[in-house]
């Protein structure tokens, strides 16, 4: 026992890490209980979990740039979109002369991979321009890029089918997608956990805390920012590819969904900005909340969700991790002061 705890400490996992591992152990064999007639683990459950893993992955990716590096990316879904369309085009058969025959009718796996790579490359090019911007200006620029991409996809009709969209060979093997997304989510979270522990991770935080200082202390901030940016983009691109294949149909409006980015931000916020476990918890919480909310208050659920978001953000800016983190969060007067700061007080420090 003692030795076990020792090795445990050496792993530096912490209690969230423990939780994460336990969840993984539960999740992996889940489809083995697949028995529709017993209705224990239904396709629907698997599909829900698949979508949850997708959200977890996306939120974690966003957290890498938005949380650790402090560059609040309001267009991150653009990489999801690029990945999705990359995959879609490679798997499909666009009837367009200039498009080389070799780049059509691929099978899913290579297509997905290439989709991710395309997204990463796009991120490097884009990042070298937009990552020079600070604060909300970066956010706007990314938002702009997002919208621009959506419309560009419409315009490149021969390749993307424009507004008509394009259909992929439908293949709805829920357990497959379940494992695929589970693996991806697992990898991403592990990666985040690792990055957070490494010097690279600390340099990202340093950039968030004081970019000029970091640069002057010998950190090549541009390089690090872009690296974080393309890593996140690559992973989101993969997710996009998976999503496209699972949905069997893509058009600009379903792929470039503005809410997708907002969801990532929302979930990361709820869980805890810049923490490893945060996005996971946030994504899971919001996903299931939605599940409950949407199936119960049909007409009011969006209103409810909006108000919920407001309460979350005002109530616990550090998110669940923050609340769990500081003991005093449970003292009522403090909460009161935290939730209702008078405008005339300088209490809040800027991001």
């Amino acid at each position, binding site marked *: 026992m003692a030795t076990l705890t020792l090795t445990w400490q050496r792993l530096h996992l912490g209690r969230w890490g423990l939780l994460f591992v336990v969840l993984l152990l539960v999740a992996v064999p889940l489809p083995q209980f697949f028995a529709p007639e017993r209705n224990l683990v239904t396709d629907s459950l698997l599909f829900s979990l698949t979508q949850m893993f997708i959200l977890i992955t996306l939120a974690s990716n966003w957290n890498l740039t938005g949380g650790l590096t402090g560059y609040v990316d309001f267009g991150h879904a653009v990489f999801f979109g690029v990945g999705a369309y990359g995959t879609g085009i490679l798997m499909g058969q666009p009837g367009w002369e200039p498009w080389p025959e070799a780049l059509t009718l691929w099978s899913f796996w290579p297509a997905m991979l290439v989709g991710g790579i395309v997204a990463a490359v796009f991120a490097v090019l884009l990042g070298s321009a937009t990552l020079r911007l600070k604060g909300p200006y970066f956010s706007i620029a990314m938002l702009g890029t997002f919208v621009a991409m959506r419309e560009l996809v419409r315009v490149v009709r021969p390749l993307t089918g424009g507004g008509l969209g394009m259909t992929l060979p439908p293949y709805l093997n829920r357990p497959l997608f379940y494992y695929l997304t589970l693996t991806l989510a697992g990898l991403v979270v592990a990666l985040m956990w690792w990055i957070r522990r490494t010097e690279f991770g600390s340099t990202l935080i340093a950039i968030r805390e004081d970019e000029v200082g970091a640069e*002057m202390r010998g950190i090549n901030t541009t390089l690090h920012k872009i690296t974080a940016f393309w890593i996140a983009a690559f992973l989101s691109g993969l997710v996009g590819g998976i999503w496209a294949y699972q949905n069997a149909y893509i058009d600009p409006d379903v792929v470039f969904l503005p809410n997708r980015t907002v969801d990532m931000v929302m979930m990361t916020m709820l869980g805890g900005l810049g923490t490893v476990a945060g996005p996971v918890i946030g994504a899971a919480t919001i996903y299931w909340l939605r599940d409950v909310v949407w199936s119960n208050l049909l007409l009011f659920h969006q209103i409810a969700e909006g108000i919920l978001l407001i309460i979350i953000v005002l109530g616990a800016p550090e998110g669940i991790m923050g609340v769990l983190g500081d003991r005093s969060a449970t003292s009522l007067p403090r909460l009161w002061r935290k939730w209702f700061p008078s405008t005339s007080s300088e209490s809040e420090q800027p991001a």
Partner: protein
Amino acid sequence: MNSQNQTNGQKPLLEGQNVSKYFGGLAALNGVDFALYRGEIAGLIGPNGSGKTTLFDCLSRVQDISEGHVFFKGVEITRKKPYQVAHMGLARTFQVIRVYRKLTVLENMLLSRQWRGESLFNQLRPSHPDTEERASQLIEFLLLDQLIDEHAGNLSGGQQRLLELGMALMPDPDLILLDEATSGINPTLIETIKDRIRQLNREQGKTFLLVEHNIQFIADMCTRVFVLNYGEKLAEGTPDEIVKNDAVIEAYFGA
């Protein structure tokens, strides 16, 4: 010793030729020439707004140099990036304290290590034990060992200045630019800082350039002093020469 340096014509460690910086119309720096030699402790003084910090910013390349040239170890750094200059062994502290407030003292130090020639790939692992070793030594050296796991944001102003000094020393630089190292620090700490600087200069031959309001501090520490006024170099010499210099007195006391 620096007198010898100059006599035996050693190449300057840091040299500025006609360094100028314009903000729109007005010149924050106007054709400043200076040379700094290995192993000396030089001072940079001048009334408020005389361009001291601007000069530092230009030297550490936070700000672009409008005109002129800067050489460090004989290499021109006029157009280099800040991190490149840092890699070459030039470190600095800031008038407005810049520490990573949300990180611990130790992490702050670790992040200030020498990054020269480090591929990004090597950084995908926790800090090297040697780095940690050096960091904790410096922290001890600066009497911060009780606070090693404290968030830098929670330190007192003085302690943060010490931490900054530590962060500047961490990459083992050859030249250290100290900007207002003593402002808002209680006298006892000032003495500590003095000792540390002297010790480093004596034992490791580190070169220092100090920006100070505290003339006494300069007088105690420096062998040579530059005086800036309205972005131009007003005078240069030993502390006692400077205090006798009429132009300087006029600039300061407008007599």
